[in-house]
């Protein structure tokens, strides 16, 4: 049996809106993935540390505080510094269209905004993480 996809779901920033992160974590687990949920208030350093420690294939960053343009590029940069640029970085939250373009340019694989079905996120990870 091929290894399960390992995903870290992280709540970045100071906001405590964890409804989305928890729903995604559970949907990914139900889809057969190994899910590590970090809990709240994670710094970019903590997120990268967990991602590397857990040998994750992907990291999903949930952020609704408006600090995505500060925190997400920092995660991408730290992953690169630590030789983990192959980890797929996915973002979920209230992200304006212009910022989505900018985040993708900086190495984010995709951004999911309110209303995105969990099935789309499951399929995206399944298609992008090599089996």
């Amino acid at each position: 049996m091929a290894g399960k996809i390992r995903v870290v779901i992280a709540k970045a920033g100071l906001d405590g809106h964890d409804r989305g992160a928890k729903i995604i974590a559970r949907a990914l687990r139900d889809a057969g993935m190994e899910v590590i949920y970090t809990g709240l208030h994670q710094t970019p350093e903590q997120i990268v540390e967990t991602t590397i420690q857990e040998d994750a294939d992907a990291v999903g960053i949930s952020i609704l505080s408006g600090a995505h343009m500060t925190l997400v590029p920092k995660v991408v940069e730290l992953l690169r510094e630590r030789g983990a640029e192959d980890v797929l970085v996915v973002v979920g939250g209230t992200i304006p269209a212009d910022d989505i373009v900018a985040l993708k340019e900086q190495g984010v694989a995709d951004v999911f905004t309110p209303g995105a079905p969990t099935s789309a996120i499951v399929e995206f990870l399944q298609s992008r993480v090599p089996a």
Partner: protein
Amino acid sequence: MATTERPSVEQLHSTMSGVEVDPLYTPESAAVDYARDLGAPGEFPFTRGVYGSMYRGRLWTMRQFAGFGTAAETNERFRYLLDHGQTGLSTAFDMPTLMGYDSDHARSLGEVGREGVAIDSLDDMETLFAGIPLGEVSTSMTINSPAAILLAYYACVGEEQGVPRAALRGTIQTDILKEYIAQKEYIFPPEPSMRLVTDMVEFCAQEMPLWHPISISGYHIREAGSTAAQELAFTLADGFTYVEWAIERGLDVDDFAPRLSFFFNAHLDFFEEIAKYRAARRIWANVMRDKYGAKNERSLLMRFHSQTAGVSLTAQQPEINIVRTAVEALAAVLGGTQSLHTNSFDEALALPTESAVRIALRTQQVIAHETGVVNTADPLGGSYFVEALTDELERQAYEYFDQIERIGGVVAAIKENFFQREIAEASFRYQSEVERGERVVVGVNRFQLEDEPELEILKIDPALETQQIERVQALRGRRDSAAVEQALARLKEDAAHENRNLMGPIMDASRAYVTMGEMCDAFRDVWGVWRETPVF
């Protein structure tokens, strides 16, 4: 446009919280004893409303929540809203302020002024309320862990304007229990947090008789994905817990209970929401009288603010959010709300623009002045369906009270993750129903648009963060640092002694321009911080 299509999936006929709904309700559906279960509006158990004349006597307060960027910018938005007929102010703070960090703290990076206004010290508070006579407005402040500090700042601005604190009117949220349960903006562990809340309740009972020291909030519990019954039950259980702590402190229930107020969500399931508000009033009145021995009628009245459901707004075809918000607002009004915030249609995308906020406020004005729903109190009272649903929500709430009691009370249940698990379960169930198409979300899982036109949204200038950081650092440079040290030492000393009320030392520290982050750090040193075990 094809509108007659048959749904490919069977739609559910339960409420959005899962309460089964019958095709028809009859006199047999609800065995109502008018005097015992309803009473006239303004009479026990207040099911039909807290005032006899309801909106004929006085409309609800239209209170739009606002705050972003620096204190100066939010001050401008406040004046704009007051000029457009708003009757009360409501302050949103940014995440660092809510979490007890100054703007120049490393954890604040990228968050300053993003989701609300940044307040670091009394200096910012003076700017926020510049030119607004505090003796004439009522102000609501949405802050919890550092609530005592913000209340002290507000009282100090009042002093400077020559308004005695006994004359200040408003509400500060302070509801720390729902932070552990749902919104997760906590700093300290539950026990010292509850002690600080009780200090405020005591201080307000003695010195600020017109102030509401806690707004016991179901809003965030619902936004975190709970059902209507969970919102009702957990909020009331939290309310009873504050009452118990204050009684334990030695206060008479009638000395503080009249100033407790509530804050509920106004969600999309129209009748369920109306039933929720009616059940809430009835439960509160009965329990306050029978369990806590309240005698003053005002201790039995549940007055509440409501806000339309942020979580019901969609990023897709955002204009239809105006319709959702109007329906939700109407439910709050028919449920007898005392004040109301209507969300702006662009809030699934960003903070609202000025024109979006104006439409939201106009929505309330249309309900108030054009629809005629204000002419009679509790117009749905006696509806077979609404009464049956009110009874059902009440029954579910009492079931939860029993469960919480068996665990050992609200604080014990928080530590066991009871609420967090119940909410996660409910929110996942609802999301699954949406994804299976059993619940329709217009524009999201049906009636989608191929090409969504782009919407003009509010952008927060990133330069504001730098300005605010410079502002707080300049303040640290010019204040009397000996006075600051002294105030902080006293705070720590008193924090370590549970029998000392912290409000006095917090007021003194505020006048010495001690920052909010510095005060919170002093408490962190003494009390430690809270971390939850994440469950999903």
